[in-house]
């Protein structure tokens, strides 16, 4: 049902969210998506049927080349979302962060009341030779890839330069790795549920100097799904919604060498500035943040670009344990982040929203709960910073 409210802006609630476990899946694409959708549908407190959904946005990068066209139609027909407008959203690793934004805008605009945003990626069903399919496909293929760069290399360039310009070192990245593995250890949906000691993380196999294996997220399969509702229908489904207080997004030059700075992600700065402004909040108001730590240096830089640390102080922030759950100033990546929870590219953004939904409703596994969590942020980056979506969620409606 569509409700036209003229110029009155609608608030948007998350009424349900679910995902598959991230990791190496035996399930195929359709079954994986169906599992995430089923988990999201069953998380809705009151009666909900997928036929009530007005529209769906599904983030995905490429499925290893298996189904490049009409992917959203293929998936949604297997989750009871027949006949409605659906589309795939592709913005590299930020695909479902932008699917979430598109779903939010569809409701904000008054064109839809109930919208599904989701994401999926199947990365581990390729032969070892074919797995190279995934390397470097979302960077600047013409100039970066032909200089030998895939994303570990690009982020390694950022890391070395950050160490050169600021008070940071690889030791700070080790702290981030240890923290995220600690956070993810008790997350039942995490890809790598393993605590890692400082000594082990410090001495990992060199992937892209100076980044080691323990600085890099795994290659994961997975799907995630969230259900958004307009304020005037949200209470039909739950008395305990989580509100999307704002959405911010931005883009930047695709290639690292074309950007004014290689130690800041301008897209993150712009997206978060927009999101904070629309929500009337600052970084100090955030209790927990799911940030895009595809590499540990990405988390270090994100803490600066999102305003949790001053520019250049991300290393100090990590060193002092400021992002540790229930110990630091803000919990960074309570799910374990991409580093531990995993990174099925297209599923990551809405996967972050699933974690935030559970944290703000107090339904995560006991030890993982961030105390007194009222306000949360998700930060989803495409590639090495070309696209970024930031969302702020709260227990309270905006304003």
């Amino acid at each position, binding site marked *: 049902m569509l409700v036209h409210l003229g110029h009155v802006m609608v608030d948007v609630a998350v009424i349900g969210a679910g995902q598959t476990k991230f990791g190496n899946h035996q399930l195929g694409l359709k079954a994986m998506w169906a599992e995430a959708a089923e988990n999201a549908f069953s998380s809705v407190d009151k009666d909900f049927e997928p036929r009530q959904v007005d529209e769906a946005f599904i983030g995905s990068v*490429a499925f290893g*080349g298996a189904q490049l066209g009409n992917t959203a139609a293929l998936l949604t027909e297997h989750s009871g979302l027949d006949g409605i407008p659906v589309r795939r959203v592709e913005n590299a690793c930020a695909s479902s962060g932008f699917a979430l934004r598109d779903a939010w805008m569809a409701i904000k605009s008054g064109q839809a009341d109930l919208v599904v945003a989701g994401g999926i990626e199947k990365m581990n069903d390729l032969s070892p030779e*074919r797995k*190279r*399919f*995934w*390397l*470097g*496909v*979302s960077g600047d*293929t*013409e*100039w*970066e*890839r*032909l*200089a*030998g*760069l*895939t994303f*570990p*290399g690009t982020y*390694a*360039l*950022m890391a*070395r*330069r950050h160490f*050169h310009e600021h008070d940071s070192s690889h030791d700070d990245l080790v702290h981030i790795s240890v923290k995220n593995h600690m956070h993810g250890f008790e997350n039942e949906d995490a890809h790598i549920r393993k605590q890692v000691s400082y000594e082990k993380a410090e001495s990992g*196999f*060199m*992937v*892209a*100097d*100076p*980044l080691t294996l323990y600085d890099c997220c795994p290659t994961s399969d997975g799907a995630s799904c969230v259900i958004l509702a307009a304020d005037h229908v949200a209470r039909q489904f739950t008395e305990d919604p989580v509100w999307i207080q704002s959405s911010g997004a931005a883009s930047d030059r695709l*290639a*690292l*060498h*074309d950007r004014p700075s*290689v130690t800041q992600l301008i897209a993150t700065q712009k997206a978060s500035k927009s999101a904070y402004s629309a929500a009337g909040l600052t970084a100090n108001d955030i209790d927990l943040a799911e940030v895009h730590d595809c590499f540990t240096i990405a988390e270090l830089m994100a803490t600066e670009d999102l305003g949790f640390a001053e520019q250049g102080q991300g290393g100090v922030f990590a060193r002092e344990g400021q992002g540790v759950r229930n110990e630091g100033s803000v919990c960074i990546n309570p799910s374990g982040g991409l580093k531990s929870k995993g990174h099925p590219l297209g599923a990551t953004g809405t996967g972050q929203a699933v974690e935030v939904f559970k944290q703000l409703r107090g339904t995560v596994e006991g030890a993982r709960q961030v105390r007194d969590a009222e306000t949360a942020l998700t930060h989803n980056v495409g590639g090495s910073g070309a696209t970024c979506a930031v969302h702020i969620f709260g227990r309270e409606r905006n304003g």
Partner: protein
Amino acid sequence: MDDYFHWKGYLAVMNEESLFIQSPYIHEDIIVYGPDSDSTTMAIAGIQYMHSKGHLIESIHLSDSIDARTVFLATGADSMAHNADLKFEDVAWDLLGGEEATLVVAKCNAQSYDFKAPTDVEIIDTGFFKDMNEAWRLEQEVHHVSQGAYVSTSQYLEGAVARLSLTSQKVGDRMIWPPRQLDENGLRISKESHMLLPEAQVESWTKLSAAGAPSEFSLRAPILGGIQTLLVRFTQGPRGVFLVTDDLEYSPKIGDTVHFAVRRIYAQEGMIRYGLKAIPKR
């Protein structure tokens, strides 16, 4: 000490108006090309040297083993292979390849000269030499195509002049490289017409493990033990990322000065793709 000097990663010696240029690598007493060189890259280096000394080489005879299009894109020197309108007798310069990795750039009417052998040569490891040659042979097979993202021939050629010669756009005092299309006002940025000075400083660097290398490098990266990339800033402003010539074992430092030479980047569908690589300044 002989009269040889280092130029674009090769050894060269000048005699009157002739240039002799050779690879610095020796294998079983034969001068051989390094891991990313061939007669095309050496021809470009030779012509560029002559240009730097004020010799205007507009037309040149090339042997069949040299990729005339790449030479033309990199240097502007036309060849009979590239330009059907050129007449044999109008071509002023010869580029004579030897049986080994050597070339002579000379005027067509030049007399012959003897060049003595250089001393500053390097013995190349037999296993490495054979493995790299085999990798290049496989890479040049017509069916060899990189996986995932793919730079088509037309896309490669669209950027080839900028890639091979550092030709850049200029807006006011600002140099733009690699080339861009429209500006913030929706207006087309003028075509590349200014050459960036081929000197830059290292801002960062990495060495990517073989397993993480792009599929274009999947055959050679394991032999090399990974792929090293430099992020550099040109003296005139733009940044770029570059591989290192000869896949040298080079320990870069931020602030190092590098210059550039055309080398093989990779091969796909039977075609070698060339581009600039960085050379640490000696």
